[in-house]
């Protein structure tokens, strides 16, 4: 069995069978991660380049670890795309790297579509590690894996995503993936954090956090970037917490406990209260571990081994 896709640009249009296979493979790699020797020779001889045109700590480390666990050879390239563009074009940078024979590229870039454009320049497997406000497919896959680990399924579950949907690649990839897997998605955000014609994504939308939490089996809480306040999109972080924050008071009023997720890094006491983030219903650290397994699965399945 192999995937129908050759590259992972995003989850839009990726068929259910592919997602199922990635998740199943990731669960078996999870077992590897629980062994005393957490390494397999699966990608020996495969060269992976991690191409990061935007700062990243978590995703970069997670990919780096996944590559090491699979015994791949790795090259890292980091640069701010703005400074890069002054001296050398993106195309030249990439072609230079590929002159040295790379098999797989893991790429992050601040502009939507840039990772796909890369695909036209080089003959290699391409994995999107986040392209601006477009997609972050491995994050959504690890979110789905974590939900599936908790509930045993994805179909017919109700998932709420709260936060800055408009500027979030995590939200978009989650929406595409969850819809494909048969889950129901509700978005909850201030209108200034919602994109145009949001209904076209096939989701429900509310401005009422209590309604959104009532609906949810699990809630995925997005980071609020503090600079948004300065742009006038929200009046203050205080008002955001009061109106959209995942607080103990709100959760206590619910009929049933709900699962709490966050892609990190968290702004504690802004979008989420510390005691909720660290509480028994949070699976935030499971998400981190599953991230390595998902990235191992994607690297393994796409590199054709």
């Amino acid at each position: 069995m192999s995937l129908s896709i050759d590259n992972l640009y995003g989850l839009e249009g990726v068929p259910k069978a592919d997602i199922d296979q990635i998740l199943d493979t990731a669960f078996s790699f999870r077992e590897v991660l629980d062994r005393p020797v957490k390494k397999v020779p699966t990608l020996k001889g495969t060269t992976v380049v991690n191409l990061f045109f935007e700062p990243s700590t978590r995703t970069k480390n997670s990919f780096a670890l996944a590559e090491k666990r699979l015994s791949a050879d790795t090259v890292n390239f980091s640069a701010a795309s703005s400074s890069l563009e002054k001296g050398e074009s993106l195309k030249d940078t990439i072609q230079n790297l590929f002159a040295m024979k790379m098999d797989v590229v893991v790429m992050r870039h601040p502009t939507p579509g840039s990772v796909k454009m890369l695909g036209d320049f080089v003959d290699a497997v391409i994995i999107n590690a986040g392209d601006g406000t477009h997609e972050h497919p491995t994050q959504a896959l690890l979110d789905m894996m974590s939900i599936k680990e908790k509930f045993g399924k994805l179909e017919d579950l109700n998932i709420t995503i709260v936060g800055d949907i408009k500027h979030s690649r995590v939200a978009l990839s989650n929406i595409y993936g969850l819809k494909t897997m048969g889950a129901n998605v509700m978005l909850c955000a201030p209108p200034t954090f919602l994109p145009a014609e949001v209904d076209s994504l096939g989701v429900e939308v509310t401005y009422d956090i209590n309604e959104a939490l009532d609906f949810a089996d699990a809630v995925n809480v997005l980071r609020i970037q503090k600079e948004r306040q300065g742009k006038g999109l929200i009046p203050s972080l205080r008002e955001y917490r009061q109106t959209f924050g995942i607080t103990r008071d709100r959760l206590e009023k619910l009929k049933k406990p709900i699962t709490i997720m966050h892609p990190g890094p968290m702004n504690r006491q802004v979008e989420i209260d510390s005691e909720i983030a660290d509480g028994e219903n949070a699976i935030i650290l499971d998400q981190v571990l599953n991230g390595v397994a998902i990235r191992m699965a994607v690297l393994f399945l796409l590199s054709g081994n």
Partner: protein
Amino acid sequence: MQKKNIQGKYLLKGGEIVDPSHDSIEKKDILIEKGRIKKIGKNIKEDGETKVIDVKGLKISPGFVDLHTHLREPGQEDAETIASGAQAALSGGFTRICCMPNTKPSISTQESVQFILNKARNLDVKVMPIASITKDRKGEQLTEFAELAKTGAVAFSDDGNPVESAQMMRNALEYSKIVDMPILNHSEDQDLKNDGLINEGSVSTSTGLPGNPAMAEEIMIYRDLRIAEFTGARLHIPHVTTKGSVELIRKAKEKGVKVTAEVTPHHITLTDEYMRSFNTLGKVAPPLRSEDDKKALIGGLKDGTIDAIATDHAPHTYNKKETSLDLAANGMIGLESALGLVLTQLVHEEEMSLMEVIKKLTIKPAAIINEELPCFQEGEKAEFTVFSSDEWWVFNKKSIYSRSSNTPFIGRELNGRVKKVVIGSKVIEI
């Protein structure tokens, strides 16, 4: 492209004359001597000295006029020169083109207008500079409209840079009355545009690309229409792209505001759906809009709200396009594909009359810049475009005479094609 200079008489035989000045399409032959129409009529018999040019099955119209061309010289001669742009114009059937002032330096002085006229002097295509509204297109100080007009400027625009100050726009429109020339304003409110890269709508939402809302254009158009109404000056709105803009212009025209408007072939052919590919060739300013907007633009062309079709021919070297969408340059070349696109889209798909479309490529844009075109009468200068209104062909790199080839239309099947251009004693085979 092959140019023949014919010394003696020549006869365009068997073609149909599309005469927009008289609203007639008739099968007539045209005899030309010394670059002028000697005789026009049915079945003209040639004598032994006359060279016969067979145009059977083809249409003959006045040479096309483009209100919106970027020639890039001076400053970006790697992308286009006045000479290469003029070749591109010819191959697209355009015999007169207006060049935009966003060169380096910009066309803000008499010297720069003269520079362009000097460079274009020996070309077959007539190049008419549009000078900037404000010095260096900075929006701070008006250029010398009267002096620039005397030198040869035909209109004023800060192309690419909207005139952001309403007071400056008022001054420009008011002052333009002494030259009776239109002011063209690139209408996009920069604040509302908010660094948007594509049209704001379902496509921007599902691609995550920052959206540029239709209202960014409409609000500035509304402002300019109101100032034009107040001042009684002539406003020409370049590259209209939204349904709301068409409605605003329609209402203003009903009220008698002196406004004219143009649309580009690409905005009536493509929509923002194209941007799902993330292909930078589709990055234009203003952006490709929705299907609804596209339909409204076509509606505006049909009912006369939109006066002219203009190419916004915007050459860029390929490295300006082979980069991420935020850094990629705006614009696509358009001269060579214009006729094929508009005939395919408007005449064959939307059943607009050929006459109406040809008017919007000839006498309508000419009137906006106070140009009189030679007509189909004895004694007039020969300046025609000969085209097939229904030949299917594939637009390809060989069709491109521009120095740049930034167009998403390579490989596209077009229904209608320029075959020859006649200018004086020259017959240019395309």
